[in-house]
């Protein structure tokens, strides 16, 4: 057997400047023909040293930095930090503030999932969904803009509550948004979920097994798509989540289709939560009694929440000063990214995009 | 009068086409890059197709375009891409100068003899204007193939199938 007609191995850089890497992500792919024989993710093009920077910042000052981790779900990042600090301080949070937090977090989750749908379909070559999702996302972003004055980097949460109460009429707008969004989810189902070409491209592609998912310590939709019902909102409830009715939806096969469809399903679930929260929200203050300069008692604290992409954890080591001695962030995208190589090896070049897209990483979070 | 031929549209077309064919052919022999050769090959094929059309055989001409300029060229290009070795498609030389000269002389004599024979043979038939067929050539060809040359036609399909199977087997042996 001679090897001469075998295609020579070709090394191809996908990214950092490539249309389908969603940012500055680089994947060094070794190809045999069109088959991937090795894939080496190279990260760090967006590294900002958030964790190190945090050591020189007061806790309030860290909040804007968390906005920039998973920039598609800044509210959740905000919350993860303040939640940990509150846990460390053992603070009492006003009820209205908690409700507002839940509403904005779930809205942000919807916005983030919508963007996933859009970009994923764009990667697979369908252009329209990308533009459709921006319409709904725009409404959410406008709601955020009204409540905190920013569209992407919200900096909304504060230790002990939230920065601002909802402006007049805001709650009603959220209430109106829910049926609108439900309609749209139906439309996506109709537009995408039944399309044969789409199904052929995602069904059975990039299958993650339960074992692998656990071994690689995946979380979020990547984990749930394999059929493991693990959702921190249910499994380790924080905030008000034990007061709301919602389901932890899981996939069956762990393939790209499941991951796609779970995003759609989770939008539905988030809408349920928002609906309940909007109905129950009480009046009252939005910021609890917090010392002006926050000093976290010496010790180590870890809390994690269900971020848009999985378990988003904040680990604080404090020496009792107003700045953390060490701040470690468990960024779900980064953890989820680890399985990419395993998923890619042996696949064809065309599946690379489908798999990479479905793993759903945000580079801000990966590189931190 | 041009080379003893009256200057008509057909004559001019003939000379242009002949020029294209011969120049492309010579290019094909002299270029060193296989891809360039492939392109000049397209020139030859298209020129020949033009000659066919000039001779009133438009169906054959277009078949020539389709099969040669379209299909076979692509096949050649793919084969070239599969087998060239990193030299940006350049070939190393050809045969030695002695053999080259000998070949050239032999070929030149043969062609010369042929040309002489063509010139000196009293060809029968019309030597006037090009007369296109009145009926569409396609119908004529169809009638010929499907009535007179049925066996040949079926044999062609057999040959094609065998070529397909054979080539697929040979080319795919590695897997």
């Amino acid at each position, binding site marked *: 057997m001679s090897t001469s007609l075998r295609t020579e191995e070709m090394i191809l850089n996908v990214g950092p400047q490539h249309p389908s890497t969603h940012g500055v992500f680089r994947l060094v792919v070794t190809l045999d023909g069109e088959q991937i024989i090795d894939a080496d993710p190279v990260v760090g093009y967006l590294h900002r040293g958030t964790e190190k920077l945090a050591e020189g910042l007061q806790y309030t000052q860290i909040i804007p930095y968390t906005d920039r981790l998973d920039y598609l779900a800044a509210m959740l990042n905000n919350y993860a930090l303040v939640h940990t600090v509150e846990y460390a301080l053992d603070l009492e949070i006003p009820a209205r503030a908690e409700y507002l937090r839940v509403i904005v977090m779930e809205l942000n989750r919807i916005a983030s999932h919508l963007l996933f749908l859009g970009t994923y379909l764009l990667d697979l070559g369908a252009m329209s969904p990308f533009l459709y999702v921006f319409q709904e996302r725009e409404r959410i972003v406008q709601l955020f803009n009204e409540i905190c004055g920013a569209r992407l980097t919200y900096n909304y949460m504060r230790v002990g509550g939230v920065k601002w109460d909802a402006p007049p009429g805001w709650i009603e707008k959220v209430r109106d948004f829910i049926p609108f969004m439900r309609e749209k989810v139906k439309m996506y189902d109709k537009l995408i979920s039944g399309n044969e070409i*789409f199904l052929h*491209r995602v069904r059975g592609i990039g299958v993650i097994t339960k074992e692998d998912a656990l071994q690689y310590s995946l979380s979020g939709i990547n984990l749930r798509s394999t059929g493991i019902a693990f959702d921190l909102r249910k499994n380790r409830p924080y905030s008000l989540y034990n007061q709301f009715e919602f389901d932890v939806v899981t996939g069956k096969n762990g393939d790209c289709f499941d991951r796609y469809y779970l995003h759609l399903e989770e939008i539905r679930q988030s809408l349920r939560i928002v609906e309940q929260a909007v109905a129950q929200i009480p009046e009252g203050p939005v910021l609890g009694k917090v010392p002006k300069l926050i000093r976290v008692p010496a010790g180590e604290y870890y809390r994690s929440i269900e971020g848009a992409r999985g378990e988003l954890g904040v680990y604080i080591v404090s020496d009792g000063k107003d700045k953390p001695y060490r701040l470690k962030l468990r960024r779900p995208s980064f953890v989820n990214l680890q399985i990419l190589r395993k998923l890619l090896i042996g696949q064809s070049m065309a599946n690379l995009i489908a798999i990479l897209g479905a793993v759903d990483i945000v580079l801000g979070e990966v590189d931190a | 009068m041009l080379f003893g031929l009256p200057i008509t549209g057909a004559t001019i077309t003939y000379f242009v086409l002949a020029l294209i064919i011969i120049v492309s052919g010579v290019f094909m022999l002299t270029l060193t890059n296989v891809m360039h050769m492939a392109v000049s090959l397209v020139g030859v094929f298209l020129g020949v197709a033009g000659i066919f059309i000039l001779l009133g055989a438009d169906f054959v001409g277009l078949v020539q375009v389709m099969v040669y300029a379209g299909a076979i060229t*692509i096949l050649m290009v793919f084969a070239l891409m599969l087998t060239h070795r990193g030299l940006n498609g350049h070939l190393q030389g050809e045969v030695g100068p002695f053999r080259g000269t000998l070949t050239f002389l032999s070929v030149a004599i043969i062609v010369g003899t042929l040309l002489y024979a063509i010139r000196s043979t009293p060809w029968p038939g019309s030597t006037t204007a090009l007369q296109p067929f009145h009926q569409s050539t396609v119908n004529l060809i169809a009638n010929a193939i499907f009535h007179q040359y049925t066996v040949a036609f079926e044999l062609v399909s057999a040959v094609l199938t065998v070529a397909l199977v054979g080539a697929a087997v040979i080319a795919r042996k590695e897997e």
Partner: protein
Amino acid sequence: MFSWQTQPLTWMHFLGMLIGAVIVLFLVLFIVMYTIYFERKVIGWMQNRIGPNRVGPFGLLQSAADVFKLLLKEDIIPANADRPMFLIAPIIAFVPSFMVLAVIPYTATHIFTAGLNVGVLYYIALSSISIVGIVLGGWASNNKYSLVGGLRSAAQMISYEIPLGLSILGVIMLAGSLNLNTIVTHQATDRFGWYIIPQIIGFVVFVIAAIAELNRTPFDLPEAESELVAGYFTEYTGFRFAFYMLAEYVYVFAISALGTTLFLGGWEGPFLPSWLWFAIKTSAFIFFLFWVRATMPRIRIDQLMGFAWKVLIPVALFNILLTGALSLIL
């Protein structure tokens, strides 16, 4: 009915032909410009956008502006590229795309049409030359994306040329001619009406193969942005790039016109002038292409090739046999 075929060849007529061809050329450039505009508008509308609207009223001059922009852009030839090939590849791709327009019967009067007796074959044969241009462009660029794009493009186009050619056969069997004019006039008198009705299988195959031949969504793999950046013309800039685009859009028009002629009765139709009928039908065809583009994700390469050889070709062959058998019975 005027046709060049019935006229003696005089210098006047030659001039007439020349003028006709030049008109077609400018018409084509115009049509291509507005096809692009139309595409952007349609897709914009389907995506709740308004599409181009800045240059000229309703953005009507947008394409013209784009063309000028491209004309004024620097022509970059990569250092590693094979220069002569790089230079002529777009031309090889473009010329056949324009030439195929010579046989399309736009109107009942064939001033702009060569009534070739082998018109359909002419189209198929000529369009296959463009593949050479594309694969050469990809090769000459010496860029991985370009090369893969060019090869894929070629593989795809050759694969879909077969079903395209086969899907037309049903029409030819019904019309008994390769002459596009005759095919149109046959459709006027045929008892089944336009051939889309008796040849619905053929039509479906034709449309699918046509979309694939055009490298358009959902078969736009060669220039699959998310994988191959821009496919075979990744390295092309300026007007060379423009000629690839031009070729692509001329083919959009040409294949729509061919589909109209073969299946939708060409310029046939009551009340309105024939050229208008032709324009309406062709626009509808083109609209469909854009509509599909606005909806579909991209198919995967192995599925693409498998679809051509395992589905379309057997279906097309079946269609031929079915047509043959039915026309024997009926």
